[in-house]
């Protein structure tokens, strides 16, 4: 990830500070801009203020101060001067840019009935940098392959704990093949362009040699489309949640495809508490549950369960696997 590529999304004074900074861009997780507040950088899991000279500081007063015009300019760059092209994304509160990085936005919502039509007076921007960690799913693979076949797998994780990173590498390894099994065709429905980070339809992240990606497509519709058109052996989706998603999952499973999915949560109990997900757990649709948590760093596996809830791995007994 090039520092200039990220820096050029910001106005001149922030750009200069970012370019002057000596840090490993791979360790930057977030860059937060809030109107009339200093710029905040999340680096190696810790929060810093970035000074005009590009130094990290704990002193709020030394940080680069962000004005309303800076946010406006950043938005122009992020949207390539074309806010109209991101109407749907803005409605959902984020824009995905080249490289798969996600720009979260907040401001005043414009409603049409009870539906969010748009967001105006955007005063908060959070650039979340996408990271690809090749090989991070290797320790997981033996748990999700049973008798030479892949299991329906659900990754459960709180935000910023690495579920998309893990899913991405899982897709890559299953698609390309590993020492555990040969590669199989994978269909990815990348609703928010976070998994593949596609730019003009081409994934910027390595998703393996047998992967087909439906970019910016609603999950439910995309899963059915992929099954009909690309006949994948594994279907992968990120962040399940809607009723339509759950309904489509049933179709995927009944078509004989295997499913990799992620969901927000911190335990199986959390998932059981969600009315829509509850049924999937009760009916033992998923054969493996991988629970992630944040311990020292993102991507630690807290536990792995099978469909009956039997623990296959527990970090308290073993050293947590790094993903």
């Amino acid at each position, binding site marked *: 990830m090039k520092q200039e590529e990220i820096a050029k999304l910001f106005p001149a004074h922030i750009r200069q500070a970012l370019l002057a900074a000596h840090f490993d861009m791979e360790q930057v997780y977030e860059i937060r801009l809030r109107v009339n507040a200093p710029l905040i950088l999340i680096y190696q899991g810790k929060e810093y203020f970035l000074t005009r000279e590009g130094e990290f500081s704990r002193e709020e007063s030394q940080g680069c101060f962000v004005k309303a015009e800076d946010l406006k300019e950043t938005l122009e760059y992020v*949207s*390539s001067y*074309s*806010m109209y092209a991101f109407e749907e994304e803005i409605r959902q509160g984020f824009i995905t840019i080249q490289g798969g990085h996600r720009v979260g936005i907040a401001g005043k919502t414009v409603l049409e009935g009870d539906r969010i039509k748009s967001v105006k007076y955007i005063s908060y921007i959070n650039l979340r940098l996408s990271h690809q960690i090749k090989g991070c799913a290797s320790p997981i693979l033996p748990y999700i392959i049973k008798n030479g076949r892949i299991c329906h797998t659900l990754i459960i994780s709180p935000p910023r704990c690495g579920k998309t990173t893990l899913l991405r590498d899982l897709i890559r390894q299953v698609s390309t093949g590993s020492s555990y099994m040969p590669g199989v065709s994978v269909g990815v429905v990348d609703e928010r362009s976070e998994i593949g980070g596609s730019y003009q339809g081409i994934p910027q992240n390595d998703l393996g040699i047998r992967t087909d990606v439906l970019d910016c497509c609603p999950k439910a519709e995309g899963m059915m489309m992929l099954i009909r058109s690309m006949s994948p052996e594994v279907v992968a989706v990120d962040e399940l949640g809607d009723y339509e998603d759950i309904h489509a999952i049933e179709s995927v499973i009944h078509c004989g495809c295997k499913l990799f999915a992620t969901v927000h949560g911190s335990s199986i109990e959390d998932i059981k508490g969600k009315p829509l997900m509850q049924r999937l757990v009760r009916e033992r649709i998923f054969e493996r549950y991988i629970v992630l948590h944040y311990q020292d760093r993102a991507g630690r596996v807290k536990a792995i369960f099978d469909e009956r809830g039997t623990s296959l791995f527990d970090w308290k007994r073993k050293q947590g696997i790094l993903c």
Partner: protein
Amino acid sequence: MLKAAGALLVILSCGAMGYGKSLNYSKRLRELEEIQKMVYFLLGEITYRREALPEAMLRVADKSRPPLSRFLLEVSKAAKAYQGERFSRIFALKAREHLKDTSLTKEDLEGFSRLGEDLGYMDITMQENTINLYLEELKREISRTRQEAPARKKLYQALGILAGMFLAILLV
């Protein structure tokens, strides 16, 4: 004899100037039509493909002829550089730079630059309306130019020859 040859030369040069001016009129018509075609492509890229402006312009550049293709490429390049310029300014600057040697009038160029002022602003409906409004103006201008073309061309050619004859009489 020499005087007659000189007079003939003056008449011929002025006539050629008039003819050149009439050719310029046809060239302007072709250029306006070329802009119209380009804007239609751009409208398609924006409304159907939902492409962002720099990408849309890059794609349309492939389907356009110089100098419009060069203009589109340069706007796309400058917009992608994010050097702190507003899009409207990039559009206007590049239009001045790349279309200055065309036969387009000052009004044609001003109208074209005005299109850039509202591109990218607000939602897709706004883009559609902005472009359609410009296309309507352009259509009117093309139709007016086409209607006036035969008479104007004749006028320029006749004026050239007459001016030549007048000058020749004065000089001789």
